[in-house]
């Protein structure tokens, strides 16, 4: 059971002067119960990739399948794929339109034909997953704080009980605690068996939370593997367009200057290694 992206290319406005190759030859597998991060700069094609995962975009070349159902040859089943793969867009709070939080969260389940008597249960479940209390149900979503709105928007996707959850820059604009809470929420979902695809430009965050990482720059896949593999690869070679986080950059610089420290992302490890080197 997985989302399989096999060697896809996506070209916008094909055959016009505005033709842009957004993705070329990208492959990726996401299993249920696994957290995969797609890391890239703005314009790297990572949002385009996200939209392939639930068939909002179809590849120009290559193949996408969800739990064995290919999007190309099963066009009639695209809705089924969209139900399985929940997609949370960047700034999802901007998609809010209903008068109450309850209605907002019920929108998805209703669209997918969940029976009416089951909906209240779905809403309560989604609210609690998103860390919001029952009291929110009757409030107007427009009067909530920015962080609460985002939770409502995420809850509205969770209420469909997707098997996979794709989130495009979900931590954008959140402060340190907001970010941590969101990552905890996603981690909980992952442990219950949801496949998480986390699209982000924050390599440091990705390394600390993901099982596997795809590094995407300029529409091409550059690195693919566990955080450990990614770390090793990144110390071996620079990836153009990818800004290295300061700690590994710092440890790498020290190594170049002849200090015997490992290239690491972990502050404590690095401090320990430097202490040993200078003999303290």
């Amino acid at each position, binding site marked *: 059971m997985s989302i399989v992206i096999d060697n896809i290319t996506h070209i916008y406005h094909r055959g016009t002067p505005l033709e842009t190759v957004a993705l070329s030859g990208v492959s990726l597998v996401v299993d249920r119960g696994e957290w995969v991060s797609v890391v890239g700069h*703005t314009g790297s094609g990572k949002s385009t990739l996200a939209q392939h995962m639930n068939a909002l975009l179809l590849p120009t070349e290559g193949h996408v399948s969800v739990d064995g159902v290919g999007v190309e040859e099963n066009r009639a089943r695209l809705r089924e794929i969209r139900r399985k793969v929940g997609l949370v867009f960047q700034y999802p709070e901007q998609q809010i339109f209903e008068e109450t939080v309850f209605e907002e969260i019920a929108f998805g389940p209703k669209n997918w034909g969940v029976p009416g008597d089951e909906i209240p249960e779905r809403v309560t479940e989604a609210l609690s997953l998103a860390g919001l209390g029952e009291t929110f149900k009757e409030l107007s979503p427009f009067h909530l704080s920015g962080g609460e709105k985002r939770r409502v928007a995420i809850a509205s996707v969770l209420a469909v009980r997707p098997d996979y959850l794709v989130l495009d820059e979900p931590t954008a604009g959140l*402060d340190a605690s907001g970010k941590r809470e969101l990552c905890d929420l996603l981690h909980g979902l992952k442990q219950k068996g949801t496949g998480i695809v986390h699209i982000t430009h924050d390599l440091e965050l990705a390394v600390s939370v993901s099982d596997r990482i795809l590094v995407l720059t300029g529409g091409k896949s550059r690195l693919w593997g566990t955080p450990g593999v990614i770390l090793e690869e990144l110390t071996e070679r620079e990836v153009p367009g990818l*800004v290295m986080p300061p700690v590994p950059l710092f440890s790498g610089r*020290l190594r170049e200057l002849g200090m015997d420290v490992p290239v690491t992302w972990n*502050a404590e490890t*690095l401090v320990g290694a430097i202490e040993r080197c200078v003999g*303290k």
Partner: protein
Amino acid sequence: MTEKVIVSFENVSYTYPGSGKFALKGINLEVIEGEWLAVLGANGSGKSTLARHFNALLVPTQGACLVGGSDTRTVEGQRFAREMAAIVFQNPENQIVAAIVEEDVAFGPENLGVPPEEIKRRVERALKETGLTDLAGKPTYALSGGQKQRLAVAGAIAMQPPCLVLDEATSMLDPSGRQELQQVLWRLHSEGMTLVSITHRMEEILRCDRCVVLNGGSIVWEGSPLVLFRDEDQRLGQWGLEIPPLVAVWKGLVESGIISGEAPPVLEEMVSALCP
């Protein structure tokens, strides 16, 4: 050299109309000419409300805000404050007015009634300062996030304000966009411009001269960023702030006496302290 105060908050409180809650409470703060002041705070701490007081977009409900010595509650003071302090806002998209890069930079000076030849000189200089000279004739929608935010800075400095306020200006940018903007700010600061960075990202205040922490609308801490990093890690958590990883390394090294803690926790300085 005598220190010249260019913005001064005197016991400023602010309540949004109809909210009944203080967004700012008893703020006392002075901004000294030529310094780089950081205002740190989590979401909802009142930082954006504070930012908007700098050029009289908001005026205090209680207390007074003096920009260049003139009270922003007066008509004269408001006009003066707009010329003294320019703000770069969070969303780059919502502060670009014109469809072409150089025309957008010209917008501020045009509003100030600057003569055409002088506008051209200012636009050229502002584009150069922000590294956008090659994009002068490009449509603004085609710019990247980092470029858009540098354009907003260019539009602000073309008005030649003595003080530039950045209200969460990097929060919608990716790491390279942030780097681009930080480099521009560093250059402006070294040329003598007064900067006020309002942010929740602590890695952006490493080079600041002084910082204040806002929490619940009040200033809860004031001092140098180095002291903040060194001594206040317990309370930073309570304020909803987080020590960046490189600062954690710096702190570890300072605590074990390997580096002195006099130099800021920026990469180049740390490298040269360790490998002289």
